[in-house]
């Protein structure tokens, strides 16, 4: 039995002993070090640069935009608008202008400030409102990267009817840094026309595509190797393409291995963060708590270039109406340009932003109509057979009511709510309990999986050892372990006979990027099918019979390979037949399926210091069959704590478009001393199209904590806070303002 067993993390021991080689740990012969000169200005024109005396400049390899083949100065993303190096126009602070390489790291650091950039600074656009006003156009014709509307029914008609209560609200979420412990890093080598890069990344084939486009090389002249990756959370989805191009340019010019490892400060200032958001809700509800219409405006600050913004916007908008059935819904979504470094992927990918708004709005609706928050949810949960905002019919079982009941019971919600209500008036420490209800679609949005048409492979060696080949990367989430379990399960072999190949584009097929909660659900299914292909080949050849032992399997492999040369099976994604999506209208099946969850936060607020602490956290989710309970629990706990950080302490501070708290010292993530008990529970309802019934899990835990916590804060103090992160000073202001208002 393989799915559901807690196989120990397969690559764990080298990580425990320090033998695991992250990119900065690997020796490369004759390696020199690369570094990046960046603009301090958020926008403007680069007039030129001078190399000031102080270092032997003739020993340095220097790259500017002029070294990039004409017409190829861009990083291949959805839109090829982001330059690899600034030519003239500067669009964000910390944008890369010039690259340096030298064998001596200390000399390299000395040289960086000696490059003087001559910049004529412009007038930056630094808020969503400013971007929307088009006071200054910084991208395209209107500052809008992407705009679309999801519409079901006729929202306006409902809002004009009498007998309804209208609740409005505006919600904001800030940028958030992924803060993986291993910073971005890459090593490149160019031999003749070919280019090889090794590094920390989520998506080897994204990097591959960027290099191929920049250098106009055929696919087989580019090789991308993922090295042990020390956390990513979306932060190593698109940026490694930039870093790989930089390292490769230096490698081509110097003829050496070039290593570029970002310092923490550079990584935080220059690479992607979670999109800041602004969401407006207008909800029509009956007195008895039935939601009749939702009018939602969802806006993301995309930063200076398109990068991932259109797809982050899609996921955020599609999830914006929450796990509720509402007959009339309109979601107007826009991603706009500003002069910040491009915001990018971060676990949840737009959904934490839109759920923060939806789930705060639900508690505010409940307060407005005088109903308990849980009762309001119960009256509106979506059920099997009902249509979501995109018109997608819920085909699989969903029992949000059951999840809510269990989560509230595990959290002792009702009892605590009464106890806190009774105790708070006399106590300087206010207690509150709140929850959030949400879901997360597994896999790429809409037609994304069809477009990717991912391939995974399984091959067997003559000794019966089986190797899984996929470009999906292990970055701490457990991909290697889960693939091992799935392949072992499909083949009926012990785990020890399975190996997962390190992603290397010269060896593994393109199983797509390691994102979107797709690795287990989508790629895992391909691994399962490919493994079954091996089994069927051996059974079909007559070399093996059902009920085989591991040694019989090995003997059959040896015989088959002796006769046919090799034994390898590929599996390519085919969309489930029921799925139908229209990219133009945003109608249809946005995801193959959803995972569902209810999270409950118990908080305490010290009314002297205004510090909010999470005292207890319950995370209940239905994610199909749980492949590995220990790994799954750990992944949920990690996501929850990132969500707690998003809610309460992780604040990116900007000055003139540059992140000024780009250090662990003053960008505060939760520590071991801050983490509450995070109690994780699963309901299991196998999904027909997932491997062994599994659905997506990775992003889900990020979606729920922030609204649950802010709902608990409202319960504790009455403070109706609609913006995160909520730092003590924000809470103090809200509570003092409400006192003023009450006078």
């Amino acid at each position, binding site marked *: 039995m393989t799915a559901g067993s807690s196989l120990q993390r397969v690559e764990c021991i080298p990580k425990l002993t320090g033998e695991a080689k992250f990119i900065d740990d690997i020796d490369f012969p004759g390696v020199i070090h690369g570094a990046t000169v960046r603009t301090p200005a958020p926008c403007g024109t680069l007039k030129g640069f001078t190399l000031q005396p102080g270092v032997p400049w003739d020993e340095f390899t220097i790259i500017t935009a002029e070294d990039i083949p004409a017409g190829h100065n861009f990083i291949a993303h959805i839109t090829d608008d982001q330059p690899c190096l600034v030519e003239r126009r500067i669009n964000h602070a910390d944008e890369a202008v010039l690259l340096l390489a030298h064998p001596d790291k200390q000399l390299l650091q000395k040289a960086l400030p000696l490059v003087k950039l001559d910049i004529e600074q412009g007038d930056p656009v630094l808020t969503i409102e400013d971007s929307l006003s088009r006071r200054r156009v910084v991208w395209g014709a209107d500052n809008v990267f992407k705009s679309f509307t999801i519409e079901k029914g006729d929202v306006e008609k409902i809002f004009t009817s009498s007998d309804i209560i209208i609740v409005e609200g505006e919600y904001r979420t800030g940028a958030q840094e992924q803060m993986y*412990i291993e910073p971005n890093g890459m090593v490149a080598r160019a031999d003749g026309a070919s280019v090889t890069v090794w590094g920390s990344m989520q998506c080897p084939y994204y990097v591959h595509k960027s290099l191929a486009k920049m250098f106009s090389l055929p696919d087989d002249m580019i090789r991308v190797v993922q090295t042990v990756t020390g956390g990513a959370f979306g932060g190593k989805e698109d940026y490694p393409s930039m870093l790989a191009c930089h390292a490769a340019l230096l490698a081509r010019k110097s003829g050496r291995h070039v290593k570029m490892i970002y310092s923490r400060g550079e990584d935080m200032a220059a690479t992607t963060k979670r999109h800041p958001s602004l969401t407006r809700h207008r909800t029509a509800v009956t007195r008895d708590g039935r939601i009749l219409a939702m009018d939602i405006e969802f806006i993301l600050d995309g930063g200076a270039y398109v990068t991932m913004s259109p797809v982050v916007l899609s996921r955020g908008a599609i999830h914006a109406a929450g796990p509720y059935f509402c007959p009339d819904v309109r979601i107007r979504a826009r991603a706009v340009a500003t002069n910040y470094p491009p915001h990018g992927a971060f676990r949840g990918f737009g959904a934490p932003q839109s759920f923060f708004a939806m789930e705060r709005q639900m508690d505010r609706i409940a307060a407005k109509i005088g109903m308990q928050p849980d009762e309001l949810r119960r009256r509106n949960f979506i059920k099997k057979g009902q249509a979501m905002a995109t018109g997608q019919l819920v085909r699989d079982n969903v029992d949000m009511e059951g999840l809510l009941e269990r989560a509230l019971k595990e959290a002792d919600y009702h009892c605590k709510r009464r106890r806190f209500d009774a105790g708070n008036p006399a106590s300087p420490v206010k207690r509150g309990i709140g929850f959030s209800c949400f879901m997360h679609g597994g896999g790429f949005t809409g037609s994304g999986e069809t477009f990717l048409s991912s391939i995974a492979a399984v091959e067997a060696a003559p000794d019966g050892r089986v190797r899984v080949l996929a470009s999906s990367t292990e970055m701490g989430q457990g991909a290697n372990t889960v693939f091992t379990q799935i392949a072992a399960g499909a083949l009926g072999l012990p785990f020890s006979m399975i190996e997962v190949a390190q992603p290397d584009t010269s060896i593994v097929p393109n199983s797509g990027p390691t994102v979107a909660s797709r690795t287990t659900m989508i790629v895992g299914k391909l691994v399962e099918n490919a493994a079954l292909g091996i089994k069927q080949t051996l059974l079909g050849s007559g070399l093996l019979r059902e009920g085989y032992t591991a040694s019989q399997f090995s003997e059959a492999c040896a015989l088959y390979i002796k006769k046919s040369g090799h034994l390898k099976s590929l599996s390519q994604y085919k969309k489930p037949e029921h799925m139908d999506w229209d990219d133009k209208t945003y109608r249809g099946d946005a995801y193959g399926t959803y995972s569902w969850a209810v999270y409950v936060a118990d908080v305490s607020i010290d009314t002297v210091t205004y510090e909010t602490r999470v005292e207890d956290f319950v995370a209940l989710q239905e994610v199909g069959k749980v492949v590995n309970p220990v790994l799954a629990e*750990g992944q949920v706990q990690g996501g929850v704590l*990132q969500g707690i950080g998003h809610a309460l302490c992780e604040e990116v501070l900007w000055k003139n478009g540059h992140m000024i708290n780009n250090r662990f010292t003053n960008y505060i993530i939760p520590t071991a001393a801050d*983490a509450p008990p995070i109690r994780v529970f699963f309901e299991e309802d196998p999904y027909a199209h997932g491997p062994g019934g599994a659905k997506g899990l990775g992003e889900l835990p990020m979606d729920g904590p922030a609204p649950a916590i802010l709902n608990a804060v409202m319960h504790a103090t009455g403070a109706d806070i609609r913006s995160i992160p909520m730092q003590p000073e924000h809470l103090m202001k809200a509570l003092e303002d409400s006192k003023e208002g009450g006078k």
Partner: protein
Amino acid sequence: MKITMTLNGKRMTFDAHPMSRLLDLLREDARLTGTKEGCGEGECGACSIIMNGRLVNSCLVPALQCEGADILTIEGVSAGGLHRVQEAFLQHGGAQCGACTPGMIMAVVALLDHNPNPSEAQIREALAGNLCRCTGYMRIFESAKNAIAAKGATR
């Protein structure tokens, strides 16, 4: 400049750059790359090692302060097979991406050296200087508690 120290039980001399940090000496001169650099300013704990019996961030220790010091790194902890702390991390899911893991293990080893039977509050306090972004710490606490329980074992 020459620096002589006891590194993982062996007396060794390095010719280190005068401005280098203990972290650089370990990673570049001794080629012990199990000690990681996460921030370079003593905040994240990824470079934690044990110096003269105390847990320190090796990025904050100038190499020239290490003359005559007794230094224990993750490689030293692992020298005789998995330490009971590592065994507990393996069994209880204490490691995910692995970037904080060597430092985290050094912190637990240092804690148990000084306090063989810490409470959960003491574990939390002892690990508060070691940041992890993957686990939410729960399984690290679980691993630490199980390492305490395993103290009767050989290491």
